[in-house]
């Protein structure tokens, strides 16, 4: 039986492969007719499967119980095995998720997005993605030319300086920025605060420390950087907000307040925005951020 299964599987895989080859061959000849003819032969998108519901153990003692356990974690539990290896479906999914994570790092934010939102376009001293990955220090500072661009295009000494940076996931920015910016703005209104989209700085090749340099340039009271986080296998679209009261280059990391895990499976962008608005108001009132803010928080209780 096992042998039969194996034969079938090999056969299936070969058929799929040859089909794919056929597809690409004929696609180059006539792409239009192909999409019509072979459309139903396209493989299902393996990344569309909800991992929390995918359960491959063939004869579980307690299926319901296992599924319940799985519903609490995105971890790849109950994936079963083939001999001593993962099953093909699990391996392919793993590689697909890994590829998505890599893509999120190595692709750029579509420049149309920050432009359409009226942001000021800037770039750190990094010139390429490779340089950005290998030289974190260069992702934290700007050239003199860029410094004067920032200076001339931004308001001097704003209460709140918003920054959007690609960081390690462009996908995170593309997925969340359009939703979070209006949510922060709306939340700030409750506290009588505001910022202007045309005063938001977009930073390409951005590390968290870039906000410190910008803080010095604009002399802002509070600087809030929305940045793409290093992607993992669960999501490639996780964004964080790093917020600091009057940041300076070389300051201790403990002075940053972080709101992390902003993505569709974590904290929804709009809800994060509402929470960030409250934090910004608090920092302006208490003139503190990071650990210092926490300490004041605890003392007032």
């Amino acid at each position, binding site marked *: 039986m096992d042998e039969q299964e194996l034969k079938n599987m090999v056969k299936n895989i070969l058929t799929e492969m040859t089909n794919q080859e056929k597809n690409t061959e004929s696609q180059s000849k006539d792409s239009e007719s192909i999409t019509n003819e072979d459309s139903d032969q396209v493989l299902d998108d393996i990344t569309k499967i909800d991992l929390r519901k995918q359960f491959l153990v063939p004869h579980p003692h307690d299926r319901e119980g296992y599924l319940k356990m799985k519903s609490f974690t995105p971890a790849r539990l109950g994936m079963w095995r083939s001999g001593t290896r993962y099953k093909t479906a699990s391996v392919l999914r793993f590689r697909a998720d890994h590829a998505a994570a890599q893509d999120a790092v190595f692709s750029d934010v579509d420049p149309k997005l920050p432009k359409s939102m009226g942001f000021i376009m800037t770039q750190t001293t990094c010139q390429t993605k490779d340089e950005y990955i290998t030289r974190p220090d260069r992702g934290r500072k700007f050239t003199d030319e860029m410094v004067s661009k920032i200076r001339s295009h931004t308001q001097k000494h704003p209460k709140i300086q918003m920054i959007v940076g690609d960081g390690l996931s462009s996908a995170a920015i593309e997925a969340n920025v359009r939703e979070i910016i209006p949510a922060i703005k709306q939340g700030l*209104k409750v506290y009588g605060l505001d910022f202007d989209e045309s005063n938001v700085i977009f930073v390409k090749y951005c590390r968290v420390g870039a906000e410190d340099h910008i803080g010095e340039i604009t002399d802002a009271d509070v600087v809030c950087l929305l940045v793409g986080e290093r992607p993992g296998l669960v999501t490639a679209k996780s964004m964080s907000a790093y917020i600091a009261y009057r940041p300076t280059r070389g300051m201790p990391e403990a002075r940053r307040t972080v709101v992390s895990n902003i993505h569709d499976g974590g904290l929804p*962008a709009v*809800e994060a925005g*509402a*929470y960030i*608005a409250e934090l910004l108001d608090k920092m302006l009132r208490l003139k503190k951020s990071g650990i210092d803010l926490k300490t004041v928080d605890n003392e007032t*209780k």
Partner: protein
Amino acid sequence: MENNTILSVGIDLGTSTTQLVLSRLTIKNFASAFSVPRINISKKEVIYKSDIIFTPLLNQQTIDAAVIKKFVTQQYEKAGINKTAIQMGAVIITGETARKDNANAVTEALSGYAGDFVVATAGPDLESIIAGKGAGTNITSKDKHQLAVNLDIGGGTSNLVVFDGLDVIDTACFDIGGRLIKVEKKTGKINYIAPKIEKLITELKLDISYGTTASPQLLAPIIQILVQVLENSVGIGTKSPYYDMLVANHGLHLNPNIPLVTFSGGVADCLNENLPTDIFKYGDIGLLLGYALRNSQIYRDKQVATSLETIRATVVGAGSHTTDVSGSTISFTQGILPLRNLPILKMARQDEQGDTAELAEQITKKIKWYQVENELHNVVLAFNGLKNPKFSDIQRYAEGITIGAKTLIEKQEPLIIIVHEDMAKALGHSLYAQLPPKYPFVCIDSVKVENGDYIDLGEPVADNSVLPVIVKTLIFG
């Protein structure tokens, strides 16, 4: 975020006994110091258990409110608690007591008297749920990954609740209890027979009436029927012809196989394998019923698990397990809490998908349902919400609400919004922008409610970040 506590009281006025417990609920932020707070109840401790007294009655139809008030005062003194320190809690009036003439008046008087908190005058469904949680049946079900049913057999009623893990999936209530027949201890003569038992006696043509000397043999046919109906109630055996008669509100709606059973209520303390010598020690049929249950099919067909509480299950449930906390990113205006006894008006998922105008129209239409004789009472507008809403969705909800709830806003009723998904803070901000300046509102999330529920909202705890919430499920199924 510092730890924080809520002092909660539970008072149970049952068919036969009245008791009180004080519980301390500890609230803790489970998120790390730098993330968005995730606040939950981390510990539930019963810090004081009162004496158990027989529920004082002026006569068979009237509860003696004065004696109960005195009891509560005494217990607070004994516990060394000032009633103003009590933040949440529930008075629950259960079993036959709930059908007394002045039941409502008593709970209402007591609620104000017992502390500045919230009262649940429970229906049988809520009572079942509270007792099951007090008995720890939900924990049993969760630990064993199997369905579990609790039978809370009190003086007048048996309340059933079925848990699938921590979730309630069904409830039922029967007029079966240990004090449906009372026996005078000295003479052994029957001095009370509950109405449904009288009917049973007539139908069975038994020679039992007030003044008859009670004996196990004489009462056996009645006990046998009560046990058979309880077996039926959890899906065992052929249906008794008296099953329907003994249903108080309804039996279990579903008919799944329930492998685990727990018992609570006074009769749970009488589940003896051998009949005790002094069978009418408590002046009722509790011991007879308990003995018969212990030897019933339930013990043979099901796995009977130990309960955390027996006679105190309901009161512990009322004190410790009725209060929950809202989500941690919420928004509300100062000075309008606490709010109590607000009916829930839940929008259908379909209504929520419409555009602003459609949503507003549905809200307006449904608010009218709560207009009694042209008098409009405030309601809680409840929504399912969206898992990962777009900002435009938030705007649409907020606009729909402000337009749809126009009648409430004109009456200056505080606007209370509950969303199931995590979106209340953003929605609250949006409402703030659209409502008239300084308009009072509360917008919370992560609370699951259904139409027919009532809700109490306490004053904020844990540095204004969460609200204690009691959801009172009055209708089930």
